[in-house]
């Protein structure tokens, strides 16, 4: 049975036979030509080197930080929380401070990986996080190259890889922050799902929701991809041959569910990660109410209004990239980014909106698609590189925008 209603056809096709031209899922394989491999390795080494040099410069420029140890150069903001979890685990119910702040709000995949590397190598947790983040970043670069090659061919893949390599928000993927896993996992998941490698996608789908709560939102775009490949009703009724896709869809909630079960055993509340958001000044608000509150001199310190406004503009700018993805046959990725951005805009606070936006790989692709033209590439790469340097410096100096 197939849906052939014209307006729904691109969305809810009854089978691959009705898949519109240009939406085809095609794989260009896993091999990378030697020339491109050299480029990827150069991007990997150069981007790591740039960030390291900027960190060292920022560290030297701020003598007050020198006393706190070299790991403070790269481990700021939430990184300290992840290090704490990797070293000592989650707090019990009485562990929160008196204003309610607790580490339950931080998802377990990154600290678990950090603890694993520490156990294997004996590295301190912060440095273990650095290893995890940069290895994952390299894998993410490979996945992104393949994804972009599937979508737009080798020249576009090379350009998109350069954008990914010098993406300003890439600084979050280079330090022990959860984006370091979320970004590569989300790229890999969509790559595999688009290629129809559903069984390989299962562990990535499960891990994604253990890295950030919005990982679970991948279920809708994955469902659409599955419906395109097999047909809507075949997936809904789990007809023979669709089990691989359905198990991948079901796995999108596994990481989150395991964490919830753990929290219930630890402290009695399976939703503690969400309930704790209150203490972090995050609660559900409609976006217009959030903006009215955050930009209102009656409620917000004037010094913060400009910062909040910049955060909000970044989030809104991210939304403007979605139509590009839509037009360029990356509708499911647009939906994923749109859902994640919507969730960010409903949390009642503008801070971290830049990080949430910058950690969505479809937006990296959107920038690459928009600027992939003779007069666009060089200026974009130059701006991106400058942005990376500024963001890395700001990160080391604990500036609020990059939080």
């Amino acid at each position, binding site marked *: 049975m197939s849906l052939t209603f014209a307006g729904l056809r691109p969305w809810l096709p009854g089978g691959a036979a009705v898949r519109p031209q240009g939406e085809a899922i095609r794989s260009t394989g896993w091999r990378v030509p030697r020339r491109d491999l050299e480029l990827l390795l150069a991007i990997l080494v150069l981007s790591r080197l740039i960030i390291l040099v900027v960190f060292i410069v920022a560290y030297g420029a701020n003598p007050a930080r020198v006393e706190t140890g070299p790991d403070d150069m790269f481990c700021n903001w939430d990184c300290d929380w992840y290090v704490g979890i990797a070293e000592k685990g989650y707090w019990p119910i009485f562990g929160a401070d008196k204003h309610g702040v607790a580490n339950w709000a931080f998802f377990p995949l990154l600290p678990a990986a950090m603890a694993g590397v520490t156990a294997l190598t004996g590295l301190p947790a912060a440095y273990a996080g650095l290893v995890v983040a940069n290895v994952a970043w390299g894998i993410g670069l490979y996945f992104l190259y393949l994804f972009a090659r599937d979508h737009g061919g080798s020249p576009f893949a090379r350009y998109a890889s350069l954008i990914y390599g010098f993406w300003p928000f890439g600084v979050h993927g280079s330090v022990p922050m959860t984006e370091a896993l979320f970004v590569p996992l989300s790229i890999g998941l969509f790559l595999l799902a688009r290629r*129809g490698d559903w069984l390989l996608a299962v562990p990535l789908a499960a891990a994604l929701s253990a890295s950030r709560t919005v990982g679970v939102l991948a279920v809708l775009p994955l469902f659409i991809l599955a419906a395109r490949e097999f047909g809507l009703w075949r997936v809904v009724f*789990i*007809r023979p041959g669709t089990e691989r896709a359905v198990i991948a869809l*079901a*796995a999108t909630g596994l990481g989150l*569910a395991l964490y*919830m*079960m753990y929290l*219930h055993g630890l402290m009695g*509340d399976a939703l503690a990660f969400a309930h704790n958001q209150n203490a972090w000044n995050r609660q559900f608000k409609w976006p217009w109410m959030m903006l009215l509150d955050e930009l209102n001199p009656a409620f917000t310190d004037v010094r913060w209004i400009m910062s909040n406004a910049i955060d909000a503009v970044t989030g809104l700018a991210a939304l403007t990239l979605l139509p590009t993805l839509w037009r360029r046959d990356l509708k499911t990725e647009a939906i994923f980014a749109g859902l994640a951005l919507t969730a960010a805009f409903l949390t009642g606070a503008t801070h971290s909106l830049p990080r949430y936006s910058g950690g969505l790989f479809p937006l990296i692709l959107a920038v690459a698609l928009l600027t992939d033209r003779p007069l666009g590439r060089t200026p974009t790469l130059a701006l991106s590189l400058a942005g990376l340097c500024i963001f890395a410096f700001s990160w080391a100096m604990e500036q609020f925008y990059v939080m």
Partner: protein
Amino acid sequence: MSCEPAVPRRRTLLGWLLLALLACLVGFYLHVLGLVATPHVDEAYTRAYLTGEFAVYPSSVGWRPGDGLDYTPGTFTDLRGSEARRNWLARFDWHRVGTPVVTLVGYSGRLFLHLTGEPDAASQRHRLRLGLVCRLPLEHAGDLVVSVNGTEVARAYCGEGLLIIDRFVPAGLLGARRYDEIRIDRTRASIFETILTRLGFRADAVELDWFAVDGE
């Protein structure tokens, strides 16, 4: 040209295995939903995290006697200090317009106290004193209603200037709960007024300066 993928007509062994795995996953998700529906948390956690009533978390490791919501009858508590305000004022109703000023906006505010040092607090009669500053223009002035654990104990006109409410509370009302709730509401506030105030378009408000509860 057909792009139809190779989809088997009969379920393979792998398919059956995946179906079994899917059934296990669904069972696990139902189990987790059951856990979500049955939290095992105390009242302090509920009011701090689930209903958002407490601005502090009294079950925390940072909890000390006299800290947060603990209150020993007979203590005069000046709320002009920002720390004291953070400890004593409930999260939702009292809006902090900068520090250290805390104003009552939305025309409603609550204090939560955990009475300590009185073994028979629940059977005692208490005297409740509240010091307020009213900043309500004439057209918005009205009565303030003070209630303890849902029972009205005082009502006073609030316009411009200082207002002191001094009332004896019936025996057994204060100390009856783990956390007593003292609520102050302005009766005349319309929804429109409340919205305007919450959005910061109006500055008229009531400020709670100090309070004291004395055992008899």
